[in-house]
């Protein structure tokens, strides 16, 4: 402990270099914390704990529709409180840059399944009544300025109408908001009335992309999910039922093996950081060879000098690493917002991984300079040899 001020002061030997190295370390560990957090999230297995909503899709792919005929059979399963169905509409508003998700839904069922959405009772009624009606999330309203009564043209890249065109028009009959800040943040979407959609579309009548199941007791969600899938086993419409959270993640999973991508990126980042920090440490020791010779002259043993250099490497890596991890926690909050409801948190396991990485990195960059300082001969170093 008494050597700490010495280690600390030595760090500041070259301030600019210290700052640059710390910035690199901070950036690397921020990336580490964030990517590992995302990776842990994606690699986590099915988790039914606390899930009060399930999503049932076709087993092969979520792009494969399921017939509405499954509805009563799902409703009949004990523990199911309410079932809704939803079809991704894939509409473009005026211009391709204006993309936001829309789902065609049976209004009453959907709103029963999502009590988190808040909208006035008369607007709810209007949505149920109006076959060409749509309700718009608060965030979309903020972005595009939609008002009740607006007719919104949407060009679907999936569905053609019976008249052969892809130009659909929906009337805004309600504006919904989230029950809290979290849900308000996700309200950049639009629900369309399934009634008009199913009548007017050219193909696929009587089907929907997914079923949304609200369960009465979250503790039963795993059992219910299994019951649903077993119900349709070996039928033409085999299903896969997941929690809503897992279902959201499975979208992103299809991009590729997230774990592998993360590992590759982090590998490259840490290779670079190893070089940067390694260079800093070896320069820091090379420039201070006479100082280490003085310390040895004063009676510092070879072991103490080795420890001082290693301590310097640890201090460097820990300071940079911890700042980076703190920033990663902040960045994770931002990313959570973007991922619509899959909370990205820097879990304890990621902190442990980060600490282990800091220690390993410090050792890797510190050991050779430390050995160099250990081996130096006092008389040669003092004479500048």
């Amino acid at each position, binding site marked *: 402990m*008494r*050597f700490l*001020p*010495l280690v600390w*002061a*030595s760090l*500041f*030997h070259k301030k600019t270099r210290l700052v640059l190295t710390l910035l690199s370390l901070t950036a690397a560990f921020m990336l580490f914390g964030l990517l590992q957090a995302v990776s842990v999230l994606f690699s986590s297995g099915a988790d039914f704990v606390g899930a009060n909503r399930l999503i049932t899709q076709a087993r092969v792919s979520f792009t494969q529709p399921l017939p509405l005929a499954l509805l009563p059979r799902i409703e009949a399963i004990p523990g199911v409180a309410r079932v809704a169905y939803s079809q991704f509409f894939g509409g473009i508003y005026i211009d391709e840059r204006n993309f936001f998700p829309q789902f065609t839904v049976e209004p009453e069922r959907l709103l029963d399944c999502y009590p988190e959405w808040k909208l006035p009772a008369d607007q709810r009624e209007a949505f149920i009544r109006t076959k060409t009606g749509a309700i718009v999330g608060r965030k979309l309203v903020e972005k595009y300025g939609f008002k009740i009564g607006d007719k919104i043209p949407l060009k679907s890249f999936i569905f053609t109408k019976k008249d052969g065109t892809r130009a659909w028009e929906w009337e805004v009959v309600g504006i919904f908001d989230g029950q809290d800040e979290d849900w308000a943040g996700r309200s950049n979407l639009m629900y369309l009335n399934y009634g008009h959609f199913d009548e007017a579309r050219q193909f696929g009548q009587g089907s929907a992309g997914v079923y949304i199941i609200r369960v009465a007791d979250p503790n039963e969600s795993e059992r219910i999910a299994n019951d649903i899938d077993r119900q349709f086993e070996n039928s033409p419409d085999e299903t896969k039922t997941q929690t809503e959270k897992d279902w959201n993640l499975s979208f992103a999973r299809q991009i590729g093996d997230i774990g592998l991508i993360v590992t590759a990126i982090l590998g490259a980042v840490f290779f670079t950081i190893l070089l940067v920090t390694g260079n800093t440490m070896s320069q820091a020791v090379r420039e201070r060879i*006479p*100082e280490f010779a*003085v*310390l*040895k*002259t*004063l*009676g*510092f*043993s*070879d*072991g*103490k000098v080795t420890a001082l250099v290693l301590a310097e490497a640890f201090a460097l890596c820990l300071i940079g690493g911890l700042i980076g991890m703190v920033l990663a926690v902040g960045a994770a909050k931002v990313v959570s917002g973007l991922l619509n409801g899959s909370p990205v948190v820097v879990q304890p396991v990621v902190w442990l991984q980060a600490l282990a990485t800091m220690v390993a990195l410090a050792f890797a960059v510190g050991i050779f300079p430390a050995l160099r300082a250990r081996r130096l001969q*006092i*008389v040669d170093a*003092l*004479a500048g040899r």
Partner: protein
Amino acid sequence: MPVPSAFPPPQYTLKPDPEPVMTALVSIRGVSKRYTRGKQTVEVLAKLDLDIASGDFLALMGPSGSGKTTLLNLIGGLDQPSDGEIRVNDKRIDQLSSNALAKWRARHVGFIFQFYNLLPVLTAEANVELPLLLTDLSKAQRKKAVAAALAVVGLSERATHKPNELSGGQQQRVAIARALVADPTLLVCDEPTGDLDRKTADEVLTLLQDLNRNYGKTIIMVTHDAKAAEYATHQLHMDKGALVVSGAAA
């Protein structure tokens, strides 16, 4: 300006020892030092014998390359002889391991170099404290000893200055305080005034003389400067790795 009276009264915790006890503190017998470069072997010191009495202030002079620094490094335990025995305070130091030698140096020797060799990132007081980090003194005890040592060299006011905020003479005085702070048996100085102007050199030499006279420190000083050597109680001349005996100074 030689100002022995400018130093503060001996509040320093060392036992003042004005009467030199004339026993050999350093005893060198048959010491040789050889360097091998490829096939060539250079003998820098050849079968050297020397006794240095406790309480002595010895000036070691001689032409460049005569082996002064080499001898000083052997006495200070920074290096080991190729042959021969070196005893300090009746302890043989020529065969100690590197760790034992480091411990011994910390306990018994204070070093002063031509270029001060302070750590640039540390304040004067932190530099002076360095040797004490190796002792088991508490923080408060270390602080007290550092303050006393800085007072002896007349730099109490500069305690929190970094080396680059001090003049050469002041830096050398900090270095002397660092050499003193752990109360060593022996002060070993390699051209301590080699980088200073006359006036500053005289101040530093007066300080060394004061340490010798009033604190009983045994001092071995290498110098090229005949004026500097006059501050010592004895002078020794070296040439080509051997001693040339000469008379004592005032």
